[in-house]
């Protein structure tokens, strides 16, 4: 059935266009000027340090304009969201997973689900090209690509009873594209988990403080799980308060441990940490959810949202200055130590999640569409939450750019490039064109009570350093620096470990589902051998890449992060291809550019990056050239630095081969999905009468609820009318009490009669 037939345009009350009042015009003009001023300061500042306030102004001003105008245009003109159409939450309400949820609550849920370590890591690495290229993409990318993808996926999934991205790909594109999408999701999951784990290993290696406090999160989570299961089921608030207090205690205690005789016990090498992580990942994913995952999830969500709010306040209060140049020489030359390759395409691939994240399409087509109250709210929840995530990425960029550039490069360059002493690092950084003395390097490490900060790649330590700089400027001064540094490390490690557990489970679930085709019992989640086997496979797969990343003489982040970015952007391409196909199939060819243009851009970026990773003749960029160089070295019996022996030479050859094959696999998958989607679109344009859409039939909505954060005058009148109608109909069933006690609700949701 067709969406045009289901929802005649005259029923969408949104289509009525009104002139803006002079006051509104003046207000929006002021916002535009503020944003424009921010951009001009960012772009025109040369040689002098400017305040981070300009970056905040540019970001917030642009977001406001984009949300007000572009997202509204997409909602009303392109998607034609229909406030009269009941959402799955209303139609299939079962009080548990399907239930109409207040838009502000759902915004919080959705934001907590999409925000993660990605937007904190990517921008930090991208800062090697200066703050400007990354910031432009974070802001422009989100308004035209990332937020659009999230919102449109959420809308189409809502129209399909909350079907997942994979299912939509299968239904609407075909089994071939669907299978490619499924393989893509699995491969991406593995790389994602390996890279995130690598970030944590690099942050915790040789850091007894960090290892102790992260280790303590496990008993804390066990205690919380026990509390919620046995002592007081469902009392999330009280257990979380206890949990957060224990967590803060664990951070403080980490400082004591680091200075005690226990320090050696908790000082772990990267290799040892890998084994611990793999063991943790396996055990955590086979233990019941209530023991570890569920309580960890509460803990990490509280910490995540709390810290992000604190960071926003900190940035606004401290208003630090940006020390990194606007654009560094690495942008044009493409020989930066953090990641190799030139600005296009690698800045876009590196930033990934902060601007456009394929993974969000999994959330936008999973839990959220089953809870959304009104179709009109996809704008606030989908577009709005992604803008917020982008702001998190901007804050990460600020955190990376307020620390001394010399220190930034000393932290983020692999040890193969800068050596392992402060003297060597200082000299290497001078070669990059920045200055930092060995004494300053040692002092920076001492200030946060770490042994060394050299080659702490992966972004987390840099971010933690910037954050401790910001926080200590607001609370506690330099005496608190070490505490805030480890607070930040703990905060990132906490939710990365949660992702490791949850991601392993998702990977296992997909594997079980696939193996179930060969041998039925695999599908049963209660069949222990199946669970153990598939868990071991998934953990083994990301564990392999983690191990490789830690032992790669060329530097794991350097090698693996581009793959992670490519994989993430590939998933975004799948989501945007599904969205574009659906726009075309539902007769919105005229508007297909809304997702089609970001899709084209994303495919250009991803395929260029893949092409360079596979075929580039520069051994620092192209995996196979790299392989060739080191293989020739082995054949000639010649050592090529940074390899220190023949074993390392062979490691590089193996790693480059695996990475290159993976890059090729990703490129092939993306091409398959695009071609298949193109075929379906072509058919839909040629034979519109044969189009079959899989959307749920129209049903009249009885819920009245505002679309945006604040109810408009018109919506207030509708709410009042609905409430009056409900009152006159008596306080019987359906009187709007579906989501809790009406007198406690800010704007009670009335029901139409």
């Amino acid at each position, binding site marked *: 059935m067709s969406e045009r037939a289901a929802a005649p345009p005259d029923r969408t009350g949104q289509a009525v266009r009104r002139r803006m009042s002079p006051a509104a015009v003046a207000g929006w003009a002021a916002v535009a000027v503020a944003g424009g001023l921010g951009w001009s300061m960012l772009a025109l500042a040369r040689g002098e340090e400017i305040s981070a306030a300009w970056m905040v102004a540019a970001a917030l001003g642009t977001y406001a304009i984009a949300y007000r105008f572009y997202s509204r245009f997409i909602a009303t003109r392109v998607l034609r969201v229909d406030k009269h159409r009941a959402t799955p939450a209303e139609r299939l309400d079962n*009080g548990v997973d399907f239930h109409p949820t207040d838009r502000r609550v759902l915004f919080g849920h959705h934001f907590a689900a999409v925000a993660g370590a990605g937007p904190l890591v990517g921008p930090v690495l991208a800062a090697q090209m200066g703050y400007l290229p990354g910031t432009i993409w974070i802001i422009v990318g989100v308004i035209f690509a990332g937020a659009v993808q999230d919102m449109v996926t959420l809308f189409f999934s809502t129209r399909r009873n909350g079907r997942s991205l994979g299912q939509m790909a299968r239904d609407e594109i075909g089994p071939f594209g669907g299978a490619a999408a499924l393989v893509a999701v699995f491969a991406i999951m593995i790389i994602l988990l390996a890279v995130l784990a690598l970030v944590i290993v690099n942050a915790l290696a040789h850091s007894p403080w960090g290892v102790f406090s992260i280790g303590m999160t496990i008993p804390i989570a066990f205690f919380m799980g026990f509390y*919620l299961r046995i002592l007081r089921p*469902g009392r999330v608030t009280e257990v979380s308060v206890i949990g957060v207090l224990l967590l803060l205690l664990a951070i403080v205690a980490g400082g004591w441990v680091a200075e005690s005789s226990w320090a050696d016990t908790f000082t772990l090498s990267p290799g040892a940490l890998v084994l611990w992580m793999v063991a943790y990942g396996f055990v955590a994913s086979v233990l019941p959810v209530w023991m570890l995952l569920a309580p960890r999830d509460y803990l990490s969500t509280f910490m995540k949202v709390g810290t992000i709010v604190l960071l926003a306040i900190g940035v606004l209060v401290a208003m630090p200055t940006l020390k990194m140049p606007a654009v560094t020489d690495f942008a044009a030359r493409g020989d930066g130590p953090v990641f190799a390759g030139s600005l296009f395409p690698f800045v876009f691939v590196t930033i990934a999640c902060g601007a456009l994240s394929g993974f969000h399409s999994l959330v936008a087509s999973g839990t959220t569409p089953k809870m959304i109250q009104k179709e009109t709210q996809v704008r606030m929840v989908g577009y709005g939450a992604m803008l917020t995530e982008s702001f998190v990425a901007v804050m990460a960029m600020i955190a990376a750019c307020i620390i001394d550039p010399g220190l930034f490069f000393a932290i983020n360059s692999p040890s193969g490039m800068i050596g392992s002493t402060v003297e060597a690092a200082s000299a290497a950084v001078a070669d990059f064109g920045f200055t930092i003395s060995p004494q300053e390097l040692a002092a920076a490490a001492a200030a946060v009570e770490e042994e060394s900060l050299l080659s702490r790649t992966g972004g987390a330590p840099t971010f933690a350093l910037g954050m401790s700089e910001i926080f200590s400027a607001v609370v506690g001064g330099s005496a608190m620096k070490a505490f805030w540094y480890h607070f930040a490390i703990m905060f990132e490690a906490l939710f990365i470990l949660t*992702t490791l557990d949850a991601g392993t489970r998702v990977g296992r679930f997909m594997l079980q589902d696939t193996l179930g085709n060969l041998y039925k019992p695999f599908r049963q*989640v209660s069949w222990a051998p199946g669970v153990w086997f598939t868990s071991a496979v998934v953990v083994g797969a990301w564990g392999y890449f983690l191990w490789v990343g830690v032992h790669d003489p060329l530097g794991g982040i350097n090698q693996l992060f581009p793959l992670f970015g490519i994989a*993430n952007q590939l998933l975004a391409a799948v989501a945007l291809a599904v969205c574009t196909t659906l726009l075309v199939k539902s007769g919105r060819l005229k508007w297909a550019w809304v997702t089609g243009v970001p899709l084209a851009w994303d495919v250009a970026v991803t395929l260029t990056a893949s092409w360079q990773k596979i075929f580039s003749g520069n051994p620092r960029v192209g995996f196979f050239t790299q392989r060739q160089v080191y293989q020739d070295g082995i054949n000639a019996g010649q050592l090529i630095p940074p390899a220190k022996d023949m074993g390392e030479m062979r490691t590089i050859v193996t790693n480059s081969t695996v990475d290159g094959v993976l890059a090729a696999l990703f490129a092939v998958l993306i091409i398959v999905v695009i071609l298949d989607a193109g075929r379906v679109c072509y058919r839909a344009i040629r034979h519109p009468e044969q189009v079959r859409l899989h959307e749920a039939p129209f049903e009249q909505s009885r819920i009245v609820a505002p679309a945006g954060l604040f109810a408009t005058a018109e919506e207030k009148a509708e709410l009042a009318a609905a409430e009056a109608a409900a009152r006159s109909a008596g306080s019987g069933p359906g009187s709007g009490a579906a989501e809790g006690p009406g007198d*406690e609700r800010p704007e009670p949701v009335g029901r139409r009669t």
Partner: protein
Amino acid sequence: MRRTARLRALAARARWFWREATGEAAYDRYVEHARRQAPGVAVLSRREFERRRTDAREADPREGFRCC
């Protein structure tokens, strides 16, 4: 007098939002829903309900998955 009433309303609002956001309100919502659907039938105890809710994630871990 009016001030305290307004403060109380604000606190109630905040509490409502918090309970909804953390999922503490899930049980109340379920009871409400169950009573409305089938008034005579006994509802699950909170313990039992929370158990099932957590264990449901075991069956399909994609529910409630968080991003990178």
